[in-house]
């Protein structure tokens, strides 16, 4: 690893969480530098989503430390972590079905501390909807959106928290090839604005084109860390995804 230049936005070390006898996340180390996109990879069931849930405060870690922007957040309730500027989207997209698109975004704006003024909120709702490409959908009920528009709306709600770090849990999954290109561009533009991103992803094209670094997990453990092309060529990673080669 190269010497760390500035302090990381997110620094996870020794993160562990077990469910009964199953150690879903086992002594995982991970860091996200400011302005970086870090990919969290691994086969299904390797503990990626659990790791995100531990970082965002849905679950409490059994042990290990999580530092976000210099502050220890392990075990903190989710709403306090969110207010510190750590936003996330969900593997199974979660929009507030009974509300309009504008209200969905407002949900991410209304509970800042200190609170925003009404005009700031209204102005931000418009800006964020435009940002994700839903400018003309403000009054539309979220229940009537297409799948990619639900994903866009969820991203707008996450961005409404004014995050310093964004956790994306398979945000690109389920998109068709042309939507995928739009999605990748959208995430890249967030990075260009200086946002740090930790993304769990299976779409290899997205990983290669977006990620500065990748961490690969298998059975709860970190098995590789480095640049995308390095880790994707790592024999241990290939073995984790595809099994042991027989014609060696």
């Amino acid at each position, binding site marked *: 690893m190269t010497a760390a230049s500035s302090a990381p936005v997110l620094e996870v070390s020794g993160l562990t969480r077990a469910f009964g006898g199953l150690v879903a996340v086992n002594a995982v180390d991970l860091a996200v530098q400011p302005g970086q996109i870090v990919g969290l990879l691994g086969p299904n069931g390797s503990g990626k989503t659990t790791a995100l849930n531990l970082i965002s405060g*849905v679950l409490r870690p059994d042990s290990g430390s999580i530092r976000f922007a210099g502050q220890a957040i392990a075990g903190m309730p989710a*709403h306090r972590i969110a207010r510190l500027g750590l*936003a996330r989207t969900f593997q199974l997209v*979660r929009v507030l*079905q009974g509300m309009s698109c504008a209200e969905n975004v407002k949900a991410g704006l*209304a*509970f*800042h501390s200190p609170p925003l003024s009404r005009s700031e909120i209204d102005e931000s709702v418009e800006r964020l909807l435009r940002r994700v490409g839903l400018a003309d959908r403000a009054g539309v009920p979220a229940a*009537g959106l*297409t799948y990619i528009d639900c994903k866009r709306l969820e991203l707008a709600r996450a961005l409404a928290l004014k995050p310093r770090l964004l956790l994306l849990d398979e945000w690109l999954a389920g998109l068709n090839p042309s939507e995928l290109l739009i999605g990748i561009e959208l995430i890249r533009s967030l990075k260009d604005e200086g946002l740090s991103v930790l993304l769990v992803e299976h779409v290899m094209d997205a990983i290669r084109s977006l990620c500065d670094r990748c961490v690969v997990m298998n059975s709860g453990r970190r098995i590789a860390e480095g640049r995308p092309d390095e880790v994707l060529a790592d024999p241990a990673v290939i073995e984790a995804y595809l099994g042991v080669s027989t014609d060696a």
Partner: protein
Amino acid sequence: MSPTQIAALAAGGAGLVVLALLPFYADAYYLSLAISLLQFTVLATAWGLFSGPTRYVSLATTAFFGVGAYTVAVLGEVLAWPLVLLIATAIGALMAMVVGISTLRLSGLHFVIFTFGLAELVRQLVIWYEVNKTRVLGRYVFVDITQSDIYWQLLALAVAVFAIGWLIARSRLGFALRIIGEDETVAKHCGINVTLAKVTLFAISAVFITLVGAIMAPRWTYIEPSIAFNPTISFQVVIMALLGGAHRLWGPAVGAIPLTLLFEFLSARFPSTSTLIIGVVFLLIVYALPQGVVGLWERVSRRKSEPPIAPQVQT
């Protein structure tokens, strides 16, 4: 304000004046009926205030109601009336916070069972205290409060519960609760302190219920735990709110009025089988009107306003 809003406000004001003057032209029977109607309107609306947005079914109504009644029974003769009501408010709020903090992390079903048990727990505690410490099981309530006074206080409380409900719906707390009702996990990740929001609302709702109990206590002149902590009240309030529709502020009142009249009629006409009939009514409402009268009304009016073609818009 738009002309329709002014008209609605004027109509509401006029209606309130007519209601406020009722003790001057109604006889004792109708005054007593009006008290019952107001009592259940406030109870059901206060219940819906919490249970509507959060979808937690609380059976603790009688616990708070009884605590309010007992506050009056113990302090009514000692302290000035406004002070008694103030103390009832404080006790109701405190009890709701303790109960809320310890139970609102539970899932919906556990919460129902806990709140049902709470009423019984408080009742047994009062019985234990009265038998072992004060050595009386019943108390007389001698306070200088007439039936008309009870009516006016309940009317004022009804106005207050609607005003507070209206204000909450327009506040940050109201918005937070709508989000919690939609998806609690999303609410947390929007920076909402979910437990605090729920406990706050539970306490506001409980204060109104406690005050109804306190205001109603002088009506009985004699109270004992089985009267003050009557579990039927909890169930009646749930049925009323569900009949009307708990997701709208005025929904529970829509259910409270016809059902109070029905229960009044049943207990006069079929005193021995009234609980059985109430149970059947409960089942009918839950199966036939899961969204309540308000939900049915909204569905019908939506169908009228929308063209019948293209039920789903796909883009």
